[in-house]
């Protein structure tokens, strides 16, 4: 039975999650140098085309089609076969199947876009597209199926409300692989990689935060109390991450920064994502504070260690996914969501073990397969990186024949 309230809410949520991809493009683009603005934006924005194509023809069926051995969906819903205005018998049974399909599509779109932050300012456009297409098929779709499509991790009891594992850990692990395979930008440690436009980054942060209400709130798949819980938890965790990061900077570096505020907010929002609909707001505040602290520490460590995860995909999204998923194992309570689970604090230590198992499996799978896919893409395309000369001139001119600022 179609519920009009649920349907309206999820359609709107889908639009909000779509907005997050261009928002992410702005968030990232503000942090790169002015010669790489459009190259960075387009690597995210093009995912709307690449992944939507993939999703409607095979991705949706692989992720949410009838289960094959717990590993993958079958291909009975290829090209949206049987996906119409009637509800699915299995998923979100109060909204049209098409609405569920397009809502999930927006998640698949933004996930590879997240990876672009790790390879910013040096990866070729064509190879990135090819890698993203492979990656969506071989990493995103299976992991999505394992957890949300009734696959083997769901059977084991692993929970992920809105994508701590499916979105943030998969992209974070892929980012780690990409950093190792591509190597650092030319001049790391010598040249100044300073953000060229932090107002742009803050605009992106604001739009991401707005979209996140659809990302997490909509993951209830109904306009109900669980959506309300997720909505509030999302906001308070973003708030707590922001507050923690700024406070740490103020204490350690004597001055709070705008980029720190944006980074802390995104860390809090990403970290609460897997838990948003399964915990109470007090737990969400704690998770946000922990996210601000941990991601700040991770980013500081990265700078010292010399890894060029240029825009901190691993330190913010990857780590956020890990911490949030594990915290869910601690703070989950059936009092907040009867369809969820009880975690460690509710006396159920085994759920925490289950969540840690989920993190290890998804993290390892995404890292290893991403590494292999990057190597394969490297061979097919004859190189992943732009030439040293093009890297010096910048991607905007050399890859797109455009300039971001004509003044």
């Amino acid at each position, binding site marked *: 039975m179609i519920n009009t309230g649920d349907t309206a809410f999820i359609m709107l949520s889908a639009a909000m999650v779509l907005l997050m991809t261009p928002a992410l493009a702005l968030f990232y683009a503000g942090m790169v140098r002015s010669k790489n603005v459009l190259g960075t934006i387009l690597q995210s924005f093009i995912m709307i085309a690449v992944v939507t194509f993939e999703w409607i023809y095979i991705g949706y069926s692989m992720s949410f089609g009838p289960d094959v051995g717990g590993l993958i969906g079958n291909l009975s819903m290829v090209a949206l076969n049987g996906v119409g205005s009637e509800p699915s018998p299995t998923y979100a049974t109060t909204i049209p199947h098409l609405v569920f399909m397009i809502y999930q599509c927006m998640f698949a779109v933004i996930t590879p876009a997240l990876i672009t932050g790790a390879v910013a300012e040096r990866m070729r456009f064509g190879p990135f597209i090819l890698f993203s297409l492979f990656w969506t098929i071989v990493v995103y779709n299976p992991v999505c199926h394992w957890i949300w499509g009734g696959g083997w991790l769901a059977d084991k009891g692993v929970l992920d409300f809105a994508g701590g594992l499916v979105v943030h850990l998969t992209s974070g692990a892929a980012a780690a692989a990409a950093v190792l395979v591509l190597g650092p930008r030319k001049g790391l440690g010598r040249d*100044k*990689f*300073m953000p060229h436009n932090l107002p742009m980054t803050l605009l992106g942060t604001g739009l991401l935060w707005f979209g996140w209400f659809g990302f997490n709130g909509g993951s209830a798949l109904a306009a109900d109390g669980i959506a309300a819980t997720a909505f509030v938890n999302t906001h308070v965790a973003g708030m707590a991450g922001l507050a923690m990061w700024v406070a740490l900077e103020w204490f350690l*570096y004597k001055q709070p*920064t705008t*980029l*720190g505020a944006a980074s802390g907010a995104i860390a809090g929002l990403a970290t609460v994502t897997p838990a948003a609909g399964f915990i109470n707001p007090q737990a969400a505040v704690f998770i946000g504070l922990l996210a601000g602290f941990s991601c700040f520490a991770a*980013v500081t460590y990265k700078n010292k260690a010399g890894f060029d995860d240029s825009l901190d995909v691993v330190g913010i999204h990857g780590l956020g996914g890990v911490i949030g998923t594990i915290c869910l194992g601690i703070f989950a309570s059936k009092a907040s969501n009867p369809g969820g689970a009880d975690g460690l604090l509710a006396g159920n230590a085994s759920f925490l073990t289950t969540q840690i198992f989920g993190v290890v499996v998804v993290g390892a799978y995404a890292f290893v397969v991403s590494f292999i896919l990057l190597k394969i893409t490297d061979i097919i395309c004859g190189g992943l990186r732009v030439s040293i000369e093009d890297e010096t001139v910048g991607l905007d001119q050399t890859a797109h024949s455009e300039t971001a600022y004509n003044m």
Partner: protein
Amino acid sequence: MKKIEAIIKPFKLDDVKDALNQIGITGMTLTDVKGYGRQKGHVEIYRGAEYMVDFIPKVKIGIIVPSEKVDEVVETIISAARTGKIGDGKIFVLPVDNVIRVRTGETGSEAI
């Protein structure tokens, strides 16, 4: 005739301009410049990564005056631009062979 080039802190520009107006200096040329001297640069921090920014924004004003006015103009600029802190800037005085007003073709002091 002399050219006076003064590199000053940008926020002192209005004070210098007003002070020069009051002693009858009717025109100047302004350039945004970056540089460093004893003040050196400053540190910027982005997500914990520290970058030394060597070149600090300054403005350079250029004024052409009759030779006898040089001391008065220099004193005026100094008193208007000085904060007493490091980085207040420098003044250069250069000889000028001739000045020609494009509109009328006047030359020398007449053209200033």
